[in-house]
């Protein structure tokens, strides 16, 4: 008997009203870019042009930073924490009210499956605003020191893998702590940030508190290096993170960086195999593997490796790859042609270096950017695919014999963002979690996120934490000399 076929179950696009072109959101208004340059954003699943977007020049960035400064000195800076909190609560509610619209727009612009944008991205974005709303008038209870004050104008640059969610991670704590922001969304996924600007208008957030400048790397650089920016918050590649760190050297600007990862997902021989297989799939194929904390290196204990890989492959044959708007789709489109090219290059290199490549049979759409779920077995530590971040649906399988070896292999990377441990033995989980040099460790689960839970990396995975009480640190200045200098 053949595989069961599902009838298409597409989510309606009718809820989204795309404008043919979008300006910049500065000082509470839509303003044309001074350079007048525009670029298009497309649906990665179909290559259909969705809208034209303004490219902010250095002059536009300057205007946005000034608007943010004005708001900081003006109404926002004078506002009580309780009132700031109310604005954040309003924003959280509007995100919930417009959840379906945001989810469809996110899926159109990003290519991720609607079930993920609907069930993960948008609810978590709302939750981040709710969580931080409550902090706005309670900062002196956060244990950071007496009399926390805003840092000032914050320049924020976010990636394309979770466009709305990363916006929420950046904007909510900044506003809760009394800062104003200029945010640059990624050039391939600007649309939900622009819809968020409308949400700020609906919430009647004072002008200039949130400014959105669209553009590519040049716009981001102008923002990071603008002398009127007091703090930089960046999520993206380690390479760009290092450039930012260098450009901020010698200045008094503060920075938080959430950078790359090459997470080990460690499966011991006593792990519940079915659950572990689900965790492996979720670890690397969630969001097409476009996740900095993706479990891209499977470390499986040698005596169960064959069985785990066999059951993993069988599970992968049931993954549905295709139309992201279809509610049954598990794996959507690769976000851009450039990213697809990078995934292809690294995968070809994996084969060339001697690893064995496998993908389930699946028919990929003819238009758009697609890459099948891919598993490499026989991977060695020195292989490029075991060292470099692929940022796509590509899993490398390595084996180990002892817990010590698992830990040594897991830690053998310049990154230190996340890791997974699968075992029924509690004492072993706690030991392994202690040994791992990673900011987030998921034991018998993977890729879980929550606004109350700090997230961020060791080593070259970045500086600082986002979320929870820890995440507030990046957005407050403290009275009294030394505390401020760090």
């Amino acid at each position, binding site marked *: 008997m053949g595989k069961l076929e599902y009838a298409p179950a597409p989510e309606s696009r009718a809820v989204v009203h795309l404008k043919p072109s979008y300006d910049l959101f500065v000082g509470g208004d839509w303003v044309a870019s001074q350079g007048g340059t525009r670029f298009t954003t497309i649906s990665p699943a179909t290559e259909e042009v969705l809208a034209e977007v303004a490219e902010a020049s250095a002059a536009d960035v300057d205007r946005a930073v000034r608007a943010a400064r004005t708001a900081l000195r003006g109404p926002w800076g004078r506002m009580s924490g309780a009132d700031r909190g109310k604005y954040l609560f309003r924003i959280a509610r509007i995100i919930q009210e417009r959840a379906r619209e945001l989810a469809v727009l996110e899926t159109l612009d990003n290519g991720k499956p609607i079930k993920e944008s609907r069930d993960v991205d948008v609810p978590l974005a709302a939750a981040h605003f709710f969580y931080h709303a409550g902090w706005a008038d309670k900062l002196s209870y956060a244990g950071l020191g007496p009399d926390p004050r805003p840092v000032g104008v914050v320049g924020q640059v976010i990636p394309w893998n979770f466009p709305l969610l990363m916006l929420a991670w950046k904007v909510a704590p900044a506003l809760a702590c009394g800062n104003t922001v200029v945010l640059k969304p990624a050039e391939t996924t600007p649309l939900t940030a622009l819809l968020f600007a409308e949400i700020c208008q609906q919430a009647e957030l004072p002008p200039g508190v949130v400014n959105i400048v669209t553009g590519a790397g040049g716009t981001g650089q102008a923002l990071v290096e603008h002398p009127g920016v007091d703090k930089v918050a960046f999520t993206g590649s380690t390479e760009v993170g290092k450039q930012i760190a260098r450009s901020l050297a*010698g200045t*008094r600007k503060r920075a938080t960086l959430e950078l790359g990862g090459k997470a080990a997902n460690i499966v011991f021989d006593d792990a519940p195999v079915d659950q572990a297989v689900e965790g492996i799939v979720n670890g690397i194929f969630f969001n097409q593997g476009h996740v900095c904390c993706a479990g891209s290196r499977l470390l499986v204990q040698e005596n169960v490796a064959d069985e785990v890989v066999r059951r993993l492959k069988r599970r992968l044959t049931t993954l549905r790859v295709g139309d992201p708007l279809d509610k049954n789709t598990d794996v959507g489109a690769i976000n851009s042609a450039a990213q697809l090219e990078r995934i292809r290059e690294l995968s070809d290199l994996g084969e060339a270096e001697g690893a064995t490549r496998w993908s389930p049979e699946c028919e990929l759409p003819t238009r758009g950017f697609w890459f099948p779920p891919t598993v490499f077995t026989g991977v060695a530590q020195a292989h490029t695919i075991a060292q470099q971040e692929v940022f796509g649906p590509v899993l490398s399988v390595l084996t180990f014999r002892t817990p010590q070896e698992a830990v040594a292999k897991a830690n053998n990377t*310049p990154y230190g963002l996340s890791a997974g441990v699968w075992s029924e033995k509690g004492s072993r989980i706690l030991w392994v979690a202690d040994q791992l040099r990673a900011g987030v460790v998921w034991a018998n689960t993977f890729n879980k996120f929550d606004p*109350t839970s700090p997230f961020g990396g060791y080593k070259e995975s970045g500086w600082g934490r986002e979320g929870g009480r820890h995440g507030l640190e990046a957005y407050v200045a403290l009275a009294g000399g030394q505390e401020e200098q*760090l």
Partner: protein
Amino acid sequence: MSSTATRRGGVEGGGPASAGTRLDVRKTYKLYIGGAFPRSESGRSYEVVSAPAGRRGPRFLANAAMGSRKDVRDAVVAARAAQPGWAAATAYNRGQVLYRVAEVMEGRTEQLAAEVAAAEGLTPARARAVVGAAVDRWVWWAGWTDKLAQVLGGLNPVAGPYFDISAPEPTGVVGVLAPQASSLLGLVSVVAPAVCAGNAVVVAASEERPLPAVTLAECLATSDVPGGVVNLVTGRTAELAPTLASHRDVNALDLAGAAGAAGVDWADLERAAAENLKRVIRPAGTGADAVEPDWSAEPGLARVRAVLETKTVWHPKGR
């Protein structure tokens, strides 16, 4: 012989022997690496002189070892080897060990005070007060080892059936530029928080005022701090700092001692530290300027936070 006669050397200020008086035994100041006291592998030393006091000019105090880039690299190797064991000790044990350092320092108050007085040009009474403050600072940090996790960590009330806990962990090996002016209190104020958190440190001592640092190293060596947890190199800050800042096996960098150091631009060091995204503690000051802060103020937790990582562990809850 002529140098002793004309320059009246030694931190205790003892002069040449005459009939009925005792010829003092001078101290040789060395590096402290991996629990041992080597001279610099380079074989170099440099002249350390006192702060000018009254109408007297600076007087010769000692020939300190002039540490090299290789000494710094050796110290990083020693620190990396020692760090996991130090971090794995119980917080209670680390607190006991750090308190023991304070005990040993207290017993050496006279020597430390004489060295601080000579280095910083302080009156004996003032120098003793500074040493007292430095001892008290060790005691303050000794009491933090077993409280950091509770104060900086905690349980996260996530919206799902998970046990989710965050706890601080040491970042690893910390490179420290010791303050140039405050030769002991400043030094203790930057070393103790890093060590308290479970890190190992490699310290470039104050260039002009290194002698109290070497005596502190002797206190560390005779307390229960494992060899390699604190490593101390004397020499030219401008020569040692770039090696620390660019070393791939150093996880964090405290630039306190960039303020007032000859030939040191902290922006350059911070740029070098970006190569492996070291955590950087910038020197105090406004604009591009670096100044030495008031080390007598209660430190707060900012300095220890900067050399800690937060690890968050998720586990499902269910029957």
